[in-house]
């Protein structure tokens, strides 16, 4: 059995695990980070994973880890020959759907009126579309449509944490990753082998999602890591608690607002933004700025906020407890009801009626290339009292802001990166000693150091389009023995262990195997004799058995062979290493000899 992992193009890209006929694909995602969303002739193209490198017909199922890592899914479900199943947690399905729709609103056809209609399958056979692109340009695709998104989402099977899925003999379970609502790490168990697939995860405890569930790693034979905190960026501060950075954000925003300035957060309207919103709401209240309104502006703002109100089961315990009072687990529900938090699809007249300054605005897209965020930069850009606070860690804010030269507005970079670091991962798995650990090369600075700290694990670094073979050798396969078979078994002790030779039929029915008695089990059962023959005691026992007979020993010292002769009844026993030959005149005598041997040896 072999597993094959195709290395992703960036840390949150697709992975393929092949297991005999079952192939699992994890997380197709569009890379909209690092500014790789391109615009060509007024139309945006997105860089997708190398979809053509996978034979989609052979993929049995796709497991999604979180909503950020599924943005390329429609290309697979709608435009490839993929016929398998897709699994994701409930919030991932909902938020993922929202994110994809937002992407279409921001970068799809509708955002650029009059652009030529080129959908999805624009590939190498139409090279003119990519004129002027670099070598990677064959990865660029035009964006999917809203109907594509809906059709794609309809194909996803929603699951909950801890729900065991039996997928044709492979057992798959989602575990909380602690990264955002519904974020999942997957354990894939094939017979006795366990693979833990760890994607965007966080062990920071003071954020809203259900905490990271370590049991995904328990007894894992293979651990595949992806989307680790990119520790190469020196200005990315690794967090133990989110509170310090929230305090910084609070202080900074508080100052700006106290000076009658406005604050703009270019960000995604879910995930860590909920924590920022909660904290900022409470903090401003404590600073006497309690009546500063918040605006969440995005085509998906309303859906996203409202869905967060009803996702209590996916939140940390503290927030779950609020559900039982009953209060909303999201504090911003309260802000919403007290008319301190508003949502709007876009910055247009509908916003005008409720709009007042100074205020705090959360708007997308984080790349500052589309969406309401542009309206606000234009509106506030020339006033140094205003500020943009960048909290997204996965976008290069300098590149993002470079499109707007000579603005007076203050910019502040306070990234929140809650993902696991290599350091944290090593700490976690060093006790567990998995057989094999796969790290994304990009996240690892010092591989030798990792190898030194987890010496019992094989450490592999993978890179974009690497094919990594992982051998999965289950030693055992679980089955069940029927009661009537068990009752036929008589065991023999070898030390602490009981052994018994077994001949039975292995029956397979409904993917469940069981051992049942075979009609001929007693006759066909092979038996075994083990032990060392001690010649003097054998002669002693034979003397007892055949009392009064003449027993002679013919010992060949050179070859360590010997032959014992019993006279009347005539028996010849030849010993040659582990070979014994017994010759008798009749079966009755043979039985007597067998009895003697059984006394000296162990048979079962």
């Amino acid at each position, binding site marked *: 059995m072999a597993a094959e992992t195709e290395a992703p193009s960036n840390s949150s890209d697709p992975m393929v695990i092949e297991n005999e006929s079952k192939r699992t694909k994890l997380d197709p995602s569009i890379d909209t980070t690092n500014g790789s969303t391109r615009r060509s002739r007024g139309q945006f193209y997105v860089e997708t994973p190398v979809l053509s490198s996978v034979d989609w017909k052979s993929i049995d199922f796709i497991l999604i880890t979180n909503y950020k890592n599924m943005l390329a899914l429609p290309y697979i479900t709608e435009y490839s020959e993929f016929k398998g199943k897709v699994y994701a947690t409930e919030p991932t399905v909902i938020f993922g759907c929202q994110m994809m729709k937002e992407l279409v609103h921001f970068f799809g056809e509708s955002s650029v009126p009059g652009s030529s209609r080129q959908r999805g399958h624009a590939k190498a056979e139409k090279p003119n579309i990519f004129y002027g692109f670099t070598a990677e340009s064959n990865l660029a695709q035009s964006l999917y449509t809203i109907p594509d998104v809906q059709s794609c989402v309809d194909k996803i099977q929603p699951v*909950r944490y801890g729900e065991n899925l039996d997928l044709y003999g492979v057992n798959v379970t989602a575990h909380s990753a602690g990264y955002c609502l519904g974020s999942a790490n997957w354990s894939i168990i094939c017979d006795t082998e366990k693979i833990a697939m760890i994607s965007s995860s966080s062990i920071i405890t003071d954020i809203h999602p259900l905490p990271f569930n370590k049991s995904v790693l328990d007894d894992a034979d293979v651990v595949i890591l992806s989307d680790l905190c990119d520790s190469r960026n020196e200005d990315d501060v690794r967090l133990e608690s989110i509170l310090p950075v929230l305090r910084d954000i609070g202080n900074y925003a508080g100052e700006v607002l106290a000076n009658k300035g406005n604050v703009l957060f270019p960000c995604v309207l879910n995930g860590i933004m909920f924590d920022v919103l909660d904290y900022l709401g409470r903090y401003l209240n404590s600073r006497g700025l309690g009546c500063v309104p918040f605006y969440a502006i995005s085509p998906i703002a309303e859906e996203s906020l409202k869905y967060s109100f009803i996702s209590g089961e996916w939140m940390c315990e503290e927030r779950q407890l609020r559900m039982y009072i009953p209060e909303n687990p999201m504090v911003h529900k309260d802000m919403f009801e007290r008319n301190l938090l508003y949502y709007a699809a876009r910055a247009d007249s509908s916003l005008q009626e409720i709009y007042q300054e100074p205020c705090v605005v959360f708007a997308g897209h984080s790349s500052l290339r589309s969406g309401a965020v542009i309206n606000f930069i234009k509106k506030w850009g020339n006033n140094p009292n205003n500020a943009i606070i960048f909290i997204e860690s996965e976008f290069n804010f300098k590149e993002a802001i470079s499109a707007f030269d000579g603005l007076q507005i203050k910019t502040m970079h306070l990234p929140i990166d809650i993902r696991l670091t290599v350091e944290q991962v090593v700490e976690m798995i060093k006790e567990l000693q998995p057989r094999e650990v796969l790290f994304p090369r990009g996240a690892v600075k010092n591989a030798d150091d990792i190898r030194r700290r987890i010496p019992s694990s094989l450490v592999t670094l993978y890179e974009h389009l690497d094919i990594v073979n992982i051998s999965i050798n289950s030693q055992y396969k679980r089955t069940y023995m029927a009661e009537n078979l068990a009752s036929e078994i008589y065991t023999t002790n070898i030390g602490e262990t009981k052994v018994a030779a077994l001949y039975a039929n292995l029956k397979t029915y409904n993917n469940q195997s069981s051992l049942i008695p075979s009609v001929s089990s007693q006759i066909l059962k092979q038996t075994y004799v083990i032990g060392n023959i001690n010649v003097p005691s054998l002669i002693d026992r034979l003397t007892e058995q055949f009392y009064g007979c003449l027993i002679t020993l013919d010992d060949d010292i050179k070859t360590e062979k010997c032959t014992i002769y019993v006279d009347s009844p005539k028996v010849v026993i030849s010993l040659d290493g582990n070979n014994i030959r017994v010759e008798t005149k009749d079966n009755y005598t043979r039985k007597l000899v067998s009895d003697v041997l059984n006394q000296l040896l162990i048979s079962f």
Partner: protein
Amino acid sequence: MIKVVPLGAGQDVGRSCILVSIGDDSTGIKNIMFDCGMHMGYNDDRRFPDFSYISKTKRFTEQLDCVIISHFHLDHCGALPFFTEMCGYAGPIYMTHPTKAICPILLEDYRKITVERKGDTNFFTSQMIKNCMKKVTAVNLHQTIKVNNDDDLEIKAYYAGHVLGAAMFYVRVGTQSVVYTGDYNMTPDRHLGAAWIDKVQPDLLITESTYATTIRDSKRSRERDFLKKVHDCVSQGGKVLIPVFALGRAQELCILIETYWERNNLNVPVYFSAGMTERANDYYKLFINWTNEKIKNTFVNRNMFDFKHIKPWDRQYVDLPGAAVLFATPGMLHIGTSLEVFKKWAPFPENMVIMPGFCVAGTVGAKVLNGDKEIQVDAYNKVQVNLQVKNLSFSAHADAKGIMQLIKQCAPKNVMLVHGEKAKMEFLQDKIRRECRVPCTCPANGETVTIETPLSIPVDISVDLLKRHLNAQKLSLPLPGERIDLTKITPVDEIPIQGVLVMEPDRIPRLIEVEEAIREARLPILDIDFKTFKTFDPKQFQDKNMISNLEETDIRVQVLEYVYEVVNKAISKNIPGIELHKGLLEIKLRSVTVSLPETIKDEFKNALHITWNSKDQNLADFLISIMDDILPDMPNL
């Protein structure tokens, strides 16, 4: 073996509490309590299950592995604070998130009525309810939970549809399993979806049977019927009292009335007895994921639980003239607002009471349903009942059809009926036995039912061993001219397997190759070859086979031929699938060889030579015993 004792809800509705012992030697016996309810018909000790059955010395925590609560109705969870706080059970308790949220509200309500209105002492306190709820572990649907981190005790919740958060529970101990349905509904309604379960094939399905004999007409016509009755009554100036549980049916009926009022532009006031309403609706808003798809999908645009026409009730309204509709708790008219209002409205024939649910025997509701014209409502007061009484079965229980449907869905090996009335249960029991062909029981409270389950022992087979056997499996090629009957070709679903079963302490038995099994023993496998002779009496053989001219051929060749025939027959009868080889002067079955002796010594003139390896000892014994039967030894002279 599975043992079940209903401590409540055995041939009865109310006080649900089913004790299940399940397990075998390999897993240990696990004791699970399904539900811990109270009985609404009693105000004395009988209101709670008789926990002394579990342990006379109150060692409940040691006795029980876990308590599972199916939903928030008091007849399923009402005794829980009593059990944990006053009896001292401190083990795990499982229920779904909405149940955990709503349960304490109903318990508190129940406590208030019992203690403050009826003056009961020795009852659990508010603090006890809070403490009790802290011990509860909330579960999600389909989440597989290992109780006490025990690999052998697993529970999994399935959607039951009866009320918000109602769940059926699948419990697996080793290879044995039980499904407990709690209350469920197989048809979706205006706010909840239908119950659903995997085909888990449990050894036992314990199902409720409230509507064991009813086959209800379609939901739509029942709704029409309900609305028409209400409309007719209010249009003639009558008052309609609809006793309901605060949570559950009430929300569905409110949605119904709300849309009807909206559509028909009615302005007759509709009230909901206050207090719990808003909070109840808050819960529905929080747990919208547990309602049905339609409500779930529209949560962004419109909250189904924000009612325009339905206003909170005020006690003063009871004497106001004119038409009105009131939803009032509780549903069985035994106490509270619904009873208060009933007393006032009952004497007037223009008024109407619609009993939407099931009423426990002994409650005022049950008497009303029974058609009593004069009802003793408490120790001092009697009420004349002149108002119109309508019974609309809106209670979200599965009807007979639904119960049969669930049985087919999960394919159990045995069925047990609880939570129903005896006569109706017996009818359904018969129907299940006939139509589903599975054994079905309906024990009374305290009666033990034992269900034998086939014991099966987990064994880990070495993959190498398995592969060797799978590869050895060959289909026999058809002989030339042989016709293949295509209808007889079936996939191979059984293969013979030979190995050594190794049992080590604290480890699942393994079936492995012998070399691996003895590796630790550091003892060699011995190869023992046996060689012996079988003598026979030629006379008897000749007599039997009437062979005349033995002069010409060696009698031993004929005897061997004869042995071959008999053995061949015995093999095809007893051990099919093994090949008996026949050579010129020998026959061979694995290592067991029967041949003519090489020596032509006199003593072996009437004998056959047998050799075998000790591995095939059983086979050799089988062969020799056949030969002993057909070839009598030479008489000892």
